[in-house]
């Protein structure tokens, strides 16, 4: 039986963009997501506007997610992953597993009554982060007393719309779709792997993603240790990019580092900001103006530091080679931000096995050939976004729309071939 609908795996910005384009073109879309909330990493990025918009597209992500969640043609399945795939282009059968979601996102109205009555500390049922869509409460099995054998259902009683349900088991479902768009996104490079930089040991060493989430949730930057405003900040580029394990430039770190630096300088002009870099990537539409404006006020040092030590006073001492003087220097900073790059998903290997698509040598999914941008070696399965390689938000959206376009073209062709004309 010829199926016209499409399965989009992963609801990051490129998955959402593909789903929206197909839905607006009348195709019915299954959008599955392994987490409880839609949006992936880019949903938690902050707006980096100073007196003018710094073109980071975080608000476009916000708008598109909102549009996708309420779109009638898109069936959203959170907490679900692919188990098995069979069939071929135009007639795929996909088996999906739903992890039990104890709070039904349709019913939950985020009133917070359950959190008030919950006896555990930290609370087992809590409000999602600011950027979460659907904005429904999350129940953590690890903390909840009921999953430790106790008969506690205080939250179940207090819930006005009966959204909480404990006796849920993982359930399976089979979908028949015409094409599949893989938009599983990326893993943020774990900065702990670079032990000498002290991420995870020193609280004032953050990653780029941490800084984004601080601005999204608090709106301004305070030192994690003492809550004061940092006076002296360092950004270290190429963490987990352009090194032995990652033979590629993650394309996003220089841009988000400079835009965050611009935001910090705008909020507090006398903060000193230093960016340690290998090659400054100042490309992209609209970035020339931004770079001209902040070129003078940010100190750029060529060369990536190797070690960060925390002195007794809590200040971070960064050891780096100052190339212009040709000797090793030590500078003190209140805060160090490691601009972590984009790495392939840890579980991309077993998804590739299920779908039968190849992995490229750098760990991302492989394109069919150098002249195609979404097709994979399996007809009918397309790649969208950072699962195929590092991209920034506008490129991920464009890549998602392109994947939708290719899926739609292939469906149109296979349908006409079947009709024999």
């Amino acid at each position, binding site marked *: 039986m010829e199926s016209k609908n499409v399965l989009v795996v992963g609801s990051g910005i490129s998955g959402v963009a593909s789903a929206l384009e197909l839905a607006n073109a009348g195709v019915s879309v299954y959008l599955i997501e392994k987490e409880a909330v839609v949006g992936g990493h880019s949903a938690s990025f902050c*707006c980096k506007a100073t007196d003018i*918009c710094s073109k980071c597209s975080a608000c476009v992500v916000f708008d598109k997610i909102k549009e996708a969640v309420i779109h009638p043609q898109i069936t959203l399945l959170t907490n679900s992953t692919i188990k098995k795939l069979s069939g071929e282009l135009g007639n795929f059968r996909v088996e999906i597993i739903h992890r039990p979601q104890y709070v039904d996102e349709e019913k939950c109205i985020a009133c917070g009554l359950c959190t008030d009555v919950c006896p555990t500390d930290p609370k087992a049922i809590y409000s999602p982060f600011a950027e979460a869509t659907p904005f429904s409460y999350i129940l953590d099995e690890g903390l909840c007393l009921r999953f430790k054998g106790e008969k506690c259902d205080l939250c179940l009683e207090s819930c006005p719309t009966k959204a909480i349900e404990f006796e849920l088991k993982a359930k399976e479902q089979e979908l028949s779709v015409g094409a599949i768009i893989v938009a599983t996104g990326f893993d943020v490079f774990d900065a702990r792997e670079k032990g000498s930089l002290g991420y995870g040991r020193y609280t004032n060493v953050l990653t780029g993603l941490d800084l984004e989430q601080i601005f999204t949730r608090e709106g301004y930057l305070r030192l994690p240790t003492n809550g004061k405003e940092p006076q002296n900040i360092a950004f270290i580029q190429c963490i987990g990019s352009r090194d032995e394990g990652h033979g590629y430039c993650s394309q996003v770190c220089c841009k988000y580092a400079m835009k965050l630096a611009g935001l910090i300088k705008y909020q507090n002009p006398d903060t000193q900001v230093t960016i340690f870099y290998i090659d400054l990537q100042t490309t992209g539409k609209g970035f020339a103006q931004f770079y001209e404006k902040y070129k003078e006020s940010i100190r750029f040092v060529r060369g990536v530091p190797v070690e960060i030590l925390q002195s007794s006073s809590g200040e971070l001492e960064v050891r780096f080679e100052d190339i212009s003087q040709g000797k090793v220097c030590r500078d003190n900073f209140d805060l160090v931000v490691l601009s972590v790059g984009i790495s392939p998903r840890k579980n991309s290997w077993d998804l590739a096995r299920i779908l039968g698509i190849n992995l490229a040598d750098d760990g991302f999914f492989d394109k069919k050939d150098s002249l195609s941008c979404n097709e994979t070696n399996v007809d009918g399965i397309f790649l969208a976004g950072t699962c195929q390689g590092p991209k920034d938000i506008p490129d991920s959206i464009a890549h998602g729309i392109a994947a939708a376009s290719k899926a739609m073209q292939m469906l149109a062709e296979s349908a006409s071939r079947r009709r024999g004309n």
Partner: protein
Amino acid sequence: MNGCIVAFCCEHSAYPAADLAGKLRLHYPENLRVIRVPCAGRVDVIHILKALEKGAAAVLVLGCEDGACHHITGNTRAKERVKYCNMLLKEVQVDGRPVAMFNLSPNAPHKFVSAVNEITKIIKESGR
């Protein structure tokens, strides 16, 4: 109740930011009254003057960030109109009550709250 602040909120940026501020239970003064408009460029000088005539303590126009307006020139036009409005008020020596424009994006609830707090501070200082 020392009079209300009337805020014309663009439905692409300021209105969703106000909703997000609500979801995060961020608090701001109660005397704010939000009027939803399709774009900051829809707000006309007469709307602001009529609000002031009705006794508003201050009038806010909240639009998208400069350069990120869904309708390209909506927020710049609004900025011009607010400037023109302030000039009109100065002509009649009624410039004790602020008319201000703020730019923000839909995922910046903190900017919405700080805009409202800033205007409330200005009103208190001018002793309205």
